[in-house]
């Protein structure tokens, strides 16, 4: 049987497409703001939400959305205050979040180390029929906001000080981006896992901008690349019998290395071929 003939693989593939679209769309703004690692921290916090779901007997995705969004807003508030102690506060929040998550999952009735692993690193068999609907709904919200408010999010992430003088609601837009990050983390955790979701937000963007010159091309390039990576990584994990998250992320990193290497070689080739830039005479001001 081929991979697409299994019902669980069909569900996982739909989820992979949605994750591949959403994660780099939000990730582009995070990279633009130079906050590449913040998705990782919010992933840590989301695990506490998953654990609460187990303990309360409700769907872990729903509790994870609530906890991750609240955590993300808290993270954004701490960063906006810009205090030196904020760095330590974030560390407390991130490591407290993941430790509490692991602790609560071990204590919960249905929780054991294998369920824990599927949330940490993703598992293609774990996407249930109900999950697909929830993931689709969340992805729709993320994509609508990330593309609908593209100009405003671009302006705020490019130059927050300027955006404030332009009269944009900077704090509200930053909180929106934080909430988008949290929702993306939650919708992606079944496929990529909370520990690796940040990679799918950041690595396709880093790869795309090796060859792009504009924000627009980077955003769309990263999204296309994200879909290609998550779908092919998922298929790879089916045949290799490996967890889906690490398979997708290893593939993403490999593609980055190949693209960055090729761009570097091309650059050196051009430098070698062309005469080097002539030293400019110093301009003397009158």
């Amino acid at each position, binding site marked *: 049987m081929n991979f697409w003939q299994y019902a669980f693989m069909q569900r996982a593939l739909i989820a992979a497409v949605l994750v591949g679209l959403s994660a780099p769309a939000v990730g582009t703004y995070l990279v633009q703001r130079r906050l590449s690692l913040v998705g990782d921290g919010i992933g840590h916090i989301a695990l506490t939400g998953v654990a609460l779901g187990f303990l309360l007997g409700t769907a872990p995705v729903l509790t994870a959305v609530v906890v991750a969004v609240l955590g993300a807003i808290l993270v954004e508030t701490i960063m906006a205050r810009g205090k030196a102690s904020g760095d330590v506060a974030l560390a407390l929040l991130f490591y407290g979040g993941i430790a509490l998550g692991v602790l609560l999952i071990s204590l919960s009735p249905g929780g054991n180390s294998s369920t824990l692993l599927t949330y940490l690193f993703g598992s293609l068999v774990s996407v249930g029929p109900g999950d697909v609907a929830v993931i689709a709904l969340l992805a729709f919200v993320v994509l609508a906001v990330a593309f609908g408010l593209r100009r405003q999010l671009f302006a705020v992430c490019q130059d927050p000080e300027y955006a404030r003088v332009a*009269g944009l609601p900077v704090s509200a837009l930053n909180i929106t981006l934080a909430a988008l990050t949290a929702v993306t983390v939650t919708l992606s955790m079944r496929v990529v896992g909370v520990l690796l979701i940040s990679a799918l937000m950041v690595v396709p963007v880093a790869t795309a901008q090796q060859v792009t010159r504009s924000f627009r091309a980077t955003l769309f390039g990263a999204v296309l690349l994200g879909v290609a990576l998550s779908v092919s990584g998922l298929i790879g994990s089916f045949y290799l019998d490996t967890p889906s998250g690490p398979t997708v992320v290893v593939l993403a990193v490999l593609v980055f290395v190949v693209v960055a290497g090729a761009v570097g070689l091309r650059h050196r080739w051009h430098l070698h071929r062309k005469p080097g830039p002539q030293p400019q005479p110093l301009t003397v001001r009158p």
Partner: protein
Amino acid sequence: MTDVERAGPTQPTAKSAVTVRAVVSGYDGDPVLHGVDLDVAGGQVVALLGTNGSGKSTLVKTVAGLIPLRSGEVELFGTPLAQFRDWARVGYVPQRTTAAAGVPATVREIVSAGRLPRIPWWRPSNGHDRTAVQDAIDQVALSGKERRPVAELSGGQQQRVLFARALATEPDLLILDEPTAGVDLVTQQVLAASLAQRVAHGAAVLVVAHELGPLLALIDRAVVMREGHVAYDGPLTDDMVGRLEEDHVHPHGPHTNRDSWGLR
């Protein structure tokens, strides 16, 4: 709303664009400004001078609403800052060494952000927006570089991109924080020429500067800051020009009485 009230591109020059009264402000900790008064009328170009730490930058950032007021009043076009919503009339050029961020962005993309105060979030940009963006790019002599990533431009060209972003909103007040710091002569001339054009349309200008260069001819008034106070407010004197020239020619040269700007 105010667009309807405005008679045309030319503002009544007597009307005050910026009014600052007894302003105390600063970042966390001790205030930097200790009771500052300042007026900039429509069509007027005011240069803010003073040494590093004198409060020039703090003053323009307070006027732009970036630093909260501790006490005193700031009004833009007669409206108290807290109630002021017509940010489309204000063009702000922050002090930056680069226009680039973590993801590549082209000249046109960054200048287009300057149009946002004129566009509601739900409306796509129209022909007039695109014309305003192109005009701003042309004015700062970056025509033909619209699709270039800003990170590939020189420091002076990046400064011009930030200036074009402020022009794209077609502002009635331009606030510039050290636009001439370390930029090439061409950029200084381009800045002076496009400022002159905005001023001819009735715009007011508040510019922080260490070196005036080609801007010199435009300056109507100089305000010298010292230790968070206004030490001088009046015409630009030859003494000050001499001081600026000296800074300009020997930026790291020894100075006697450096922060006095020839004032007693």
